[in-house]
C-alpha cells in the first residue's frame, strides 16, 4: 500500500511551504517534493507604476532581507537612468555597500543564531520543546545575546543608511539619498561594547570557531547530511574576489570547472531559463546550455565560497583558506557546510563594515548622478540567501512595462528539493512510522539554504507544523501536529 506524507508548513524558515513524501508498498520513498503553496504577484502589480517606486515597492516582498531587493531594484534602475554599475558617485556606491553588508550581517546572524543554531546545539532529534530559540536562550544565554546583538548592529547600520531598519528608502535611482553623519559613524566605531564594529568582528571570529569546533565533534553528520554534487552560481568581482554588491556572473560545476564566467548582468537571460511546474508556485531556474536535468545550480554562501577565488578581507580570507583546504580546494558540496560558509561571510561583512565606516566618502560628496535615459535595466546582487536578479523594462512615459525577479530561494529550488529527497530516502526508507525527528531532519536540510519562502512567494500567516500520512486510496491514516 503506497503512502503520502505531508509536512506542512515547514517551520523555522521565512515563509510558507510544505513537503510531500510518497512511499511505495514497501515503505520505500518514491518521490519527495518541497511545494511552495502561496502565490506571489509582485512582478505583475508593479506594472504601470512609476519606475522609481520599484526599490521601495518590491522590497515589501520580505521583512528579513528587504535591503537586497531594495538595492537590486536600485541597481537595475541605475541603468535605466543611464548610470552603469561603476557609474555611481563614491558616496553613492559606498553608502549602498555599507547598507548591504549590514543587511547580510544581520540576516546571516538571524538565520544562524535564531533559526538554525538550535538544531546544532541540541541535535536535530532533540525534544522540540527545547530545540528552539527559547531553548538556546535558556541554555546558551551568552550565545543568544551575541546573536541578538549582532543582528541589532546590522539593523542599526541599515537604519543609518536607508532611514529605517526595515523597508527604508535610502537607495534611489542613480545613488543614495543621504550621507552618514559623523555621529552615526562614531556610534558604530566607538560605542561601548558590544555595539561597535570591533566587537562584531571578534564575535564573528568566535562564531566561525564555534562551527569549526562543532564540526570537529560531529564530522560525520555535518559532512554527510544531504551531501550531493551540484553546480554553483554567484557574482564575483572582475579579479575573482568575493563581492556581495557588484560583479559578473560565474558558474562552476561540482568539480570546480568553470561553466560560465564574466557574464555581464544584463545578459543573464541569455544563459538562464526558468521552468514552471504544476505543483509549486516557485519556478525552477536552470542554465540553458546544460538543460533542465543538468543545468540546475546552487546559490548562497556555499556557492559563493565555491565560485570566488579569494575574499578581500584578511580575517575572512584566513578562514576561507581553512575552509577550502578541507575539500582540497575543490568546491564544497556538503549541505550543512553552508552554515560554515555563512559564518565566514558574517566575518567578511563585519570587516567590510569597518573598512567602509572609516571611509571619508561616506560623510561627504555627491549623492546622485544621472546619464542618458534607457528603457531596460538588470540589477544582480548577492543577497544573504544567494544571487538575486531584478530585471525591469520601462515605457517611454516612465511606467514599468515588465518586471522579472529571480530571487535567491527560487535559484535554490531544485537543490532544496534534492536535499529533501536525500534526507527522506536516507531516514524514512522502510519506516512504517514517521517520527518528529525525521520530520525535523527534512526541515534541517531545507533550513541550511535559509530559504525565504515569503520572499519567493509573498506568503502570510501562521506556521504550525503538520505531518499527514495517506494510504493508497488517499485516506488519512496518521497525523502529527506540533
Amino acid at each position: 500500500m503506497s503512502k503520502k506524507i505531508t509536512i506542512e508548513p515547514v517551520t523555522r524558515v521565512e515563509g510558507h511551504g510544505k513537503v510531500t513524501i510518497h512511499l511505495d508498498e514497501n515503505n520505500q520513498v518514491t518521490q519527495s517534493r518541497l511545494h511552495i503553496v502561496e502565490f506571489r504577484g509582485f512582478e505583475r502589480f508593479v506594472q504601470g507604476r512609476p519606475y522609481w517606486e520599484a526599490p521601495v515597492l518590491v522590497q515589501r516582498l520580505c521583512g528579513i532581507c528587504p535591503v537586497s531587493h531594495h538595492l537590486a531594484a536600485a541597481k537595475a534602475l541605475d541603468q535605466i537612468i543611464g548610470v552603469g554599475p561603476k557609474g555611481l558617485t563614491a558616496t553613492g556606491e559606498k553608502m549602498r555597500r555599507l547598507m548591504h553588508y549590514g543587511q547580510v550581517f544581520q540576516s546571516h546572524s538571524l538565520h544562524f543564531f535564531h533559526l538554525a543554531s538550535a538544531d546544532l546545539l541540541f541535535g536535530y532529534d532533540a525534544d522540540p520543546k527545547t530545540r528552539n530559540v527559547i531553548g538556546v536562550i535558556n541554555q546558551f544565554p551568552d550565545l543568544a545575546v551575541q546573536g541578538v546583538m549582532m543582528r541589532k548592529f546590522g539593523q542599526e547600520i541599515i537604519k543609518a543608511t536607508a532611514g529605517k531598519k526595515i523597508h527604508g528608502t535610502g537607495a534611489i535611482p542613480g545613488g543614495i539619498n543621504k550621507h552618514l553623519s559623523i555621529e552615526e559613524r562614531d556610534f558604530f566605531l566607538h560605542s561601548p561594547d558590544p555595539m561597535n564594529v570591533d566587537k562584531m568582528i571578534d564575535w564573528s571570529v568566535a562564531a566561525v570557531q564555534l562551527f569549526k569546533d562543532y564540526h570537529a565533534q560531529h564530522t560525520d553528520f555535518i559532512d554527510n547530511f544531504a551531501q550531493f554534487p551540484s553546480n554553483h552560481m554567484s557574482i564575483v568581482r572582475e579579479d575573482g574576489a568575493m563581492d556581495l554588491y557588484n560583479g559578473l556572473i560565474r558558474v562552476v560545476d561540482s568539480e570546480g570547472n568553470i561553466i560560465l564566467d564574466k557574464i555581464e548582468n544584463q545578459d543573464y537571460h541569455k544563459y538562464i531559463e526558468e521552468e514552471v511546474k504544476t505543483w509549486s508556485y516557485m519556478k525552477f531556474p536552470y542554465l540553458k546550455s546544460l538543460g533542465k536535468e543538468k543545468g540546475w545550480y546552487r546559490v548562497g554562501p556555499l556557492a559563493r565560497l565555491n565560485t570566488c577565488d579569494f575574499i578581500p578581507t584578511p580575517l575572512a580570507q584566513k578562514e576561507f583558506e581553512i575552509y577550502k583546504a578541507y575539500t582540497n580546494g575543490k568546491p564544497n558540496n556538503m549541505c550543512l557546510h553552508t552554515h560554515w560558509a555563512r559564518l565566514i561571510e558574517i566575518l567578511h561583512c563585519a570587516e567590510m563594515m569597518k573598512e567602509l565606516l572609516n571611509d571619508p566618502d561616506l560623510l561627504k560628496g555627491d549623492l546622485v548622478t544621472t546619464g542618458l535615459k534607457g528603457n531596460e535595466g538588470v540589477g544582480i546582487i548577492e543577497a544573504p540567501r544567494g544571487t538575486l536578479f531584478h530585471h525591469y523594462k520601462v515605457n517611454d512615459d516612465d511606467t514599468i512595462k515588465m518586471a522579472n525577479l529571480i530571487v535567491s530561494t527560487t535559484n535554490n529550488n531544485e537543490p532544496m528539493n534534492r536535499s529533501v529527497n536525500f534526507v527522506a530516502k536516507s531516514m524514512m526508507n522502510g519506516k512504517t512510522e514517521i517520527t518528529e525527528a525525521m520530520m525535523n531532519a527534512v526541515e534541517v536540510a531545507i533550513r541550511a539554504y535559509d530559504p525565504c519562502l515569503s520572499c519567493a512567494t509573498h506568503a502570510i500567516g501562521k506556521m504550525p507544523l503538520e505531518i499527514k500520512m495517506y494510504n493508497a486510496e488517499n485516506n488519512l491514516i496518521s497525523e502529527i501536529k506540533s
Partner: protein
Amino acid sequence: MEKIKFQIDNKECEALYGQMLVDAARDNGIYIPTLCNMQGTNPCGSCRVCTVKINGRYATACTTPVACGMEIESETDEIQEIRNALIELLFNEGNHFCPTCEMSGNCDLQALGYRFDIMAPRFSYQWPKRAVNTDCPYLIIDYNRCIRCKRCIRSIKDEQGKSYFAFLNRGDKIEVSIDTMMAKNMSKELAELAAKNCPVGSILLKGTAYKTPIGERKYDKNRIGSCVENAQLTAKMEELK
C-alpha cells in the same frame, strides 16, 4: 480694522472681519484640520475635514466667515469623531498604500491619519480601479490617491485663467482629469506648483521621489498642526517671561 470676538471651545478669540473661521482659528493658536483648504484660492469645503459646530449647527470652517458672538465647538469628542470618520473614508475610497508612496512623510492625509490615531479601518475598502496619467512630461498623476480636494482645479490655470484640471463624471464616479493637450504643454514651473499644491501623493513631480531621507521629511518630527499649536505655546512662554 474692526476685530470680531468669538469663542472656540470656550476660549475667547479675536478675528478680522470677513476672515474664514479656519484662518481665524489658526491666528488664535487653534488648529482645525483641513485637506482641501489652501491659502490663495477660494475655499470649496470639499473634504469636510474642518467640520465644526457653530452655535449648535454643523459647518465647514474653511467656508464660513467668522461672525461676532459665534460659539464654536472644535475639539469636542463629537466633532473629533466626525473628522476621524471623514479621514477614514478618504483612505477607504481610494487606493492609499502609504508604505510605498513617495509622499509618505510629506502627505497631509497620512499625517492626519497619524494625528487622529487611525490604526485600522472600520469601513470596508472600495478598491476602485483608477489610472495613472502621464500626459504631462514633468508629472505622474496617480488617481489612486486622489481625494478630489480640487486644489489642482482651483490653482493650476493658464494665462487666460483656464484650469488644466477638471472634474469628470458625477456622484461617486467623479474623478479629477487633466486636459491632455494642455498637459503636454504645461511648463515645468506650473508642474512643480501642481505637485506642491497636492496634499496627497496624487500629483508627483518626476525626478524628486524619495530624495528626502526618512527623518527629514515634513511630518517626521512634527505632527500636522503642531506649527499652529507650537506658535501659540511659544507666545505664551514669551508672555510668562
